[in-house]
């Protein structure tokens, strides 16, 4: 059992004076300290959090409302800028960088009384599926310390799994919220592209980057989404939030159809994982849905599309790290050109450099049409197939990942093998649809997540299905 009540109850009790924000923050900090061995956290924001907690308690004492998340502690992946706190994206090039402004998502959570208590580990710049690409250390899976927690939001997922806070923020560019949620056994939600402002979040691949939320239940994730969602002038890609909100979770599932994705089965995934997901699909029928098989023929090449577009966008986004305006700068450089190449060469880790190199290649003249433009066009084909599928089904279903959490070191010397960990998650990012990982059970003692997807902007219905699924799955 979790030591945390549902988030809505926590906030309500803090507002009612039955709990204090100060006590919740101390509880979170004590848990973080007690679970240090799992290396989920890069930095705790103890003083900042305590100061905010006192202010929230004072607001409530004065008879005012502290918000829908009053006093609720949370943990942010370390690629979110939190004003006055170190933000590294787990990279050496950003070591020592203190956020001079704040992410809009953090701003919105704080405006409703939430308190950021720590920043979590990730694969540097969110490039990876295991946290092994962190320039600092690898986070350990709570179910088996010799295994990875998944990634890139591995620290956030472990923080939730170990009860360090009621919820954590992640990002999801190709599966980085859902896959670690699957590997540690919590809920991980990737909203429709554009639903949450990314201002103040370290950019990875802008055409697929979204902010994700991790928590123990879908209800908790839905409340957090409800607070963060909506159009924002600082991120021109944002869309309006659903006027009905996301917290009802009561959509009637009778008459709705769930499409079991044919291409995600019988293609080399762990048979025990496949069996568990198929049995989860059976159980889902209790909610009233009908389950049918659907085919998305282009899905098997989605990963190839992703590993052209993502590095292309990464190479562009990481060009801002030039050693001049912020971040690591090489002391030995004698001219500007050397300052660029040395600062970037030393400051970036292996995977960041690998992606910059691939991106530079696929965008270079002579190769642009064959790689980048071709990938963009296959992306269109994939989108068309999803749109077509959603004319016959309301949701799509499959595994989150082909395996349970793999051993630390198993893929770390084979980048292509590591990329294959994203094979079932990247499509939702390329198409821009919402997707969620909910715990479906265990295989050999390790958690397995069930992935559900819905059409763009059907986030509320997807969360409703996930919440109703939770009740029948584990």
């Amino acid at each position, binding site marked *: 059992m979790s030591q945390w009540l549902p988030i809505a109850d926590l906030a309500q009790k803090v507002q009612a004076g039955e709990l204090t924000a100060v006590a919740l923050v101390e509880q979170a900090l004590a848990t973080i300290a007690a679970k240090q061995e799992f290396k989920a956290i890069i930095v705790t924001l103890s003083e900042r959090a305590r100061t905010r907690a006192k202010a929230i308690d004072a607001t409530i004492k004065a008879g005012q409302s502290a918000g829908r998340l009053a006093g609720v502690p949370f943990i942010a992946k370390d690629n979110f800028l939190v004003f006055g706190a170190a933000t590294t994206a787990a990279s050496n090039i950003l070591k*020592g*960088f*203190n956020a*001079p*402004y704040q992410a809009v998502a953090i701003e919105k959570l704080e405006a409703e009384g939430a308190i950021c208590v720590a920043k979590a580990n990730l694969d540097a710049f969110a490039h990876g599926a295991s946290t092994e690409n962190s320039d600092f250390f690898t986070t350990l899976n709570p179910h088996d310390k010799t295994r990875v927690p998944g990634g890139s939001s591995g620290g956030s997922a472990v923080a939730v799994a170990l009860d360090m806070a009621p919820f954590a923020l992640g990002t999801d560019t190709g599966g980085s919220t859902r896959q670690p949620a699957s590997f540690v056994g919590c809920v991980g939600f990737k909203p429709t*592209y*554009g639903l949450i402002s990314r201002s103040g979040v370290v950019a990875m691949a802008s*055409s697929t980057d979204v902010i994700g939320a991790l928590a123990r239940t879908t209800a908790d994730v839905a409340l957090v989404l409800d607070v963060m969602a909506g159009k924002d*002038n600082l991120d*021109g*890609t944002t*869309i309006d939030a659903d006027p009905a909100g996301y917290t009802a979770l009561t959509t009637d599932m009778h008459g709705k159809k769930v499409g079991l994705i044919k291409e995600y089965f019988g293609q080399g995934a762990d048979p025990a994982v496949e069996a568990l997901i198929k049995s989860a699909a059976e159980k889902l029928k209790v909610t009233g849905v009908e389950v049918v098989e659907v085919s998305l023929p*282009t899905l098997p*090449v989605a990963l*190839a599309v992703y*590993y*052209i577009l993502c590095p292309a966008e990464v*190479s562009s986004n990481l*060009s801002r790290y*030039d*050693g*001049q*305006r*912020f*971040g690591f*700068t090489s002391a030995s*450089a004698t*001219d*500007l*050109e*050397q*300052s*660029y*190449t040395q600062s*970037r*060469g030393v400051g970036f880790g*292996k995977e960041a*450099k*690998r992606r*910059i*190199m*691939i991106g*530079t*290649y696929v965008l270079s003249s002579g190769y642009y049409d064959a*790689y980048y*433009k*071709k*990938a*963009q*066009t*296959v*992306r*269109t*084909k994939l*989108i068309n197939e999803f749109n077509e599928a959603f004319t016959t089904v309301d949701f799509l279903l499959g595994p989150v990942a082909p395996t349970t959490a793999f051993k630390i070191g198993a893929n770390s010397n084979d*980048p*292509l093998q590591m*990329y294959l960990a994203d094979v079932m998650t990247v499509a939702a990012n390329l198409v*821009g649809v919402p997707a969620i990982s909910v715990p479906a059970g265990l295989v050999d003692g390790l958690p397995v997540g069930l992935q559900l997807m819905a059409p*763009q902007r059907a986030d509320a219905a997807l969360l409703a299905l996930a919440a109703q699924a939770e009740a029948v799955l584990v």
Partner: protein
Amino acid sequence: MVKLSRADILKLARLARLDLSEDEIVEYGTELSEILQYVEQLQAVDVTGLIPTQQVTGLVNVEREDEIVDYGYTPADLLANVPQVQAGQIKVRRMIG
């Protein structure tokens, strides 16, 4: 079959402004060739009549008021992360020899 040569890797590193170690030059040569080999499978996909996707929101011409917003940050806040500051300005190394 794509096989990147040492010269290809060095050219890419130069374009991307990255100093690479000797080990990295060798490793990236092999790894990038493998990754490009993997993504080659897209060449076989028929995309006749389809146009490339640049973005998935369908939003066009997103505008906002052109106004000054005071976020309360001082120039000192914003310069705090700069490696070298001189007289309130970012100092860079010599560009022309």
